């Protein structure tokens, strides 16, 4: 018997309606429910990480004022904050959350091709989160090695959590990678195998493209993290010397010989740099769709956008050592990696131009998702441009390991993707829940988040110029820093606390909408992509009722000249669209 894709099992649709609460919401194999599970879990751990950052900021803004912060738990805070935000929040939310929700709906399929594996992926992810959280409560607490977990320090006694914390951290990462691989294989296979009729690759919305390429990056890059985690575990538990050289730690010889800490860094960043794009590419894709929809205009330069995503994805594998310019690696590598790194700026810049040109001669609705999308362009330009400082090997000499780096990657990898996350949640909220959110609250949430975060990170770059090193528990008195540097740090802390507090608005909005929100129109934004054309809102298990959609056009038929409506959904055949005169596309 050959395998029959779910897409072909029209006669089995009744099986798609699980009845009990448990099968419907807990052990669910519906990609939409799994997406929500992923999303809620990721946002939950993200809130923990947000709390940790507030603790760090309290110490940095007002040193030695809080008795519950000391150097030991401070370094645990920064480590767990970074690790959670990068891996357990952003990666899981974009791919496990949005990837799960959008791929089948946008591609016009009933579900992921392997729903059981999909469910398993979520539960294994949850297990990794539980192991991660458990590490807070073991003797010695979680690891404080910094999210990069550089050996030798990560497994030597000068670092917090060296007994249990680091073991659980590495174990949790390994489990996460397993979960991600299960999910990732599913996403790739679904995109390749389960698209509906007529949905050619080049008709896919850019969201799917971004998620698709990011998944491929993840599948190929996460093994590097797994390799380094396994080797570090062995170095820690049975004293092999993969990464550990002969050293004298606190006057004691721990018995290692000849390993290479730099080897770990190569492996780590071979994963770590693509990881940046694992987060960024889905954000790129999603923001493209948001801009196009709310500007009522086709995305400008679609093909260029697709190729830029692919080019960025490919290039991201040969730029990793720009994190290591001052690591002591062979300095001649600097020439190569500076060049590749700055080359990657070109496709990235093209994406920015195309987003802005999408606005040009559009008819821009400044609804909440659009506000977030435009703010994303602003912060991403800022973060991208500061990347040109750090990528250029010479400028990295004074700036690496300073607040400039912290400000840069938070702008480009923290603020920008999070703005997209919020934009995307507001955008698809009516589809996910079937209810509208509160526009006014959403706008307040936007303004406070956008202005607040800029007020955190713009000044932070300047502390970096002045030479404030990152990962310092306290600066103390230094001769080369003006005293006002501490005032600026206090300002940054106030801004950070403000932003953290205003996120309450988002949750109020969520609760309000779930309880009292007006019922949403199935396609409130007049969008063209398939997820807005489902027969039910929110879509039921199986998504499409009895008949799968057919795709007849690309995802960006907005304001096509000569048509009555300013959008034509992807599933409308050329003959059915209501032309007010000539047929579209003829003159192109």
């Amino acid at each position, binding site marked *: *018997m*050959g*395998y029959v*894709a779910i*897409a*072909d099992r029209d006669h089995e649709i009744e099986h798609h309606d699980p009845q009990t609460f448990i099968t419907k919401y807990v052990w669910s194999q519906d990609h939409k429910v799994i997406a929500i599970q992923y999303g809620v879990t990721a946002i939950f751990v993200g809130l923990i990480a947000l709390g940790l950052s507030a603790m760090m900021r309290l110490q940095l803004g007002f040193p030695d004022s809080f008795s519950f912060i000391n150097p030991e738990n401070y370094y645990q805070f920064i480590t767990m904050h970074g690790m959670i935000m990068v891996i357990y929040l952003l990666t899981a939310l974009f791919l496990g959350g949005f990837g799960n929700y959008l791929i089948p709906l946008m591609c016009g399929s009933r579900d992921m091709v*392997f729903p059981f594996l999909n469910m398993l992926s979520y539960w294994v992810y949850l297990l990794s989160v539980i192991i991660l959280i458990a590490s807070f409560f073991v003797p010695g607490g979680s690891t404080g090695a910094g999210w990069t977990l550089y050996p030798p320090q990560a497994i030597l006694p000068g670092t917090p959590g060296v007994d249990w914390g680091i073991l659980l951290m590495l174990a949790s990462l390994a489990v996460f990678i397993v979960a991600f*691989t299960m999910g*990732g*294989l*599913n996403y*790739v*296979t679904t995109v*390749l*195998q*389960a698209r509906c*009729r*007529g*949905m*050619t*690759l*080049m*008709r896919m919305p850019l969201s799917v493209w971004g998620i698709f390429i990011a998944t491929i990056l993840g*599948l*190929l*890059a996460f*093994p*590097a993290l*797994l*390799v380094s985690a*396994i*080797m570090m575990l*062995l170095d820690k538990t*049975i*004293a*092999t*010397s*993969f990464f550990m050289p002969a050293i004298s730690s606190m006057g004691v010889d721990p018995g290692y*010989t*000849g*390993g*290479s800490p730099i*080897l770990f860094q*190569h*492996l780590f960043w*071979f994963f770590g740099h693509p990881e940046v794009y694992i987060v960024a590419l889905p954000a790129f894709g999603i923001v493209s769709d948001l801009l196009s929809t709310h500007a009522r205009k086709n995305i400008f330069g*679609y*093909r260029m956008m*697709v190729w830029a995503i*692919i080019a960025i994805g*490919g290039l991201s*594998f*040969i730029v990793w050592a720009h994190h290591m310019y001052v690591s002591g690696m062979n300095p001649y590598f600097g020439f190569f990696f500076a060049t590749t790194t700055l080359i990657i700026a070109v496709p990235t810049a093209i994406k920015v131009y195309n987003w802005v040109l999408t606005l040009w001669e559009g008819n821009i609705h400044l609804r909440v998702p659009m506000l977030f999308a435009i703010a994303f362009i602003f912060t991403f330009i800022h973060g991208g441009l500061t990347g040109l400082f750090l990528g250029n090997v010479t400028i990295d000499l004074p700036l690496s390991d300073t607040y400039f780096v912290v400000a840069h990657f938070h702008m480009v990898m923290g603020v920008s993707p999070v703005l997209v996350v919020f934009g995307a949640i507001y955008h698809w909220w009516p589809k996910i829940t079937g209810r509208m959110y509160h526009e006014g609250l959403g706008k307040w949430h936007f303004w406070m988040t956008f202005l607040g975060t800029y007020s955190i990170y713009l000044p932070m770059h300047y502390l970096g110029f002045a030479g404030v090193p990152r990962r310092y528990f306290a600066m103390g008195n230094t001769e080369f820093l003006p005293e006002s540097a501490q005032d600026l740090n206090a300002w940054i802390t106030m801004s950070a606390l403000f932003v953290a507090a205003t996120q309450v608005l988002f949750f109020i909005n969520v609760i309000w909408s779930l309880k009292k929100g007006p019922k949403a129109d199935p396609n409130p934004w007049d969008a063209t992509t398939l997820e807005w054309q489902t027969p039910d809102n929110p879509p039921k298990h199986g998504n499409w009722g009895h008949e799968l959609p057919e795709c*007849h*056009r*690309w995802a960006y*038929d907005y304001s096509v000249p000569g048509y009555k409506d300013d959008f034509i959904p992807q599933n409308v055949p050329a003959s059915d669209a209501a032309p007010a005169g000539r047929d*579209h*596309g003829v003159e*192109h």
Partner: protein
Amino acid sequence: MEIGLIVLAAMLATLLGWILKQSFNTQPWLAEVVDETANQAPFNARPKLVALTAFLAVVTSFFALILSAYSLRMELGDWIPLTEPQLLWVNTGVLVLASVAFQWTRNIAVREATPRLMPGLLLSGVLTMVFLAGQWIAWQQLNASGQYMTSNPSNAFFFLLTGIHGLHILGGMYVWARATVKAFGGDVDAVRHSVELCTIYWHFLLLVWLVLFGLMLST
């Protein structure tokens, strides 16, 4: 890192070539240019095969990265090459036979309408278990001669590589066991596809082993 990069570049180039073929010179906004029915063929083909291929790419990346680490670590001062146990030659031969057995089973599964799969499945499984046992004995031989995992980085890599390779085979054995149980129950149709996928997986792991073994012998 060169090994990792070369392997990765090859995989990415393949992917890129395929995507370019799909997208080159299409102008997606021109509805008329795309033949509405042209893209049916790859659809609903064999998702499990596609997923397995993707998974093999992941595993390739994984092993390529360990080998990159191997080649980097090898250049450092404290590296003493390990003399691999002779038994590994026998093990290699057994793994080749297991692969051949799977190929034979697969051919039967594909060709015949009501294939008898049990002999082939059992033979492949037993040979594979012999391989795993052989690897285990090779470990014991090394330990008995005082060559522990921690004695030298080359030892550490030997145990790591063989261990991870063995774990991958064990994973395959899980699928094999499920298929065998089903085939024993007579549900031959359900097993056919599994046998095909297992065969690909076994060939792949044989290839990985040959690369690992060759590399360890040559250094």
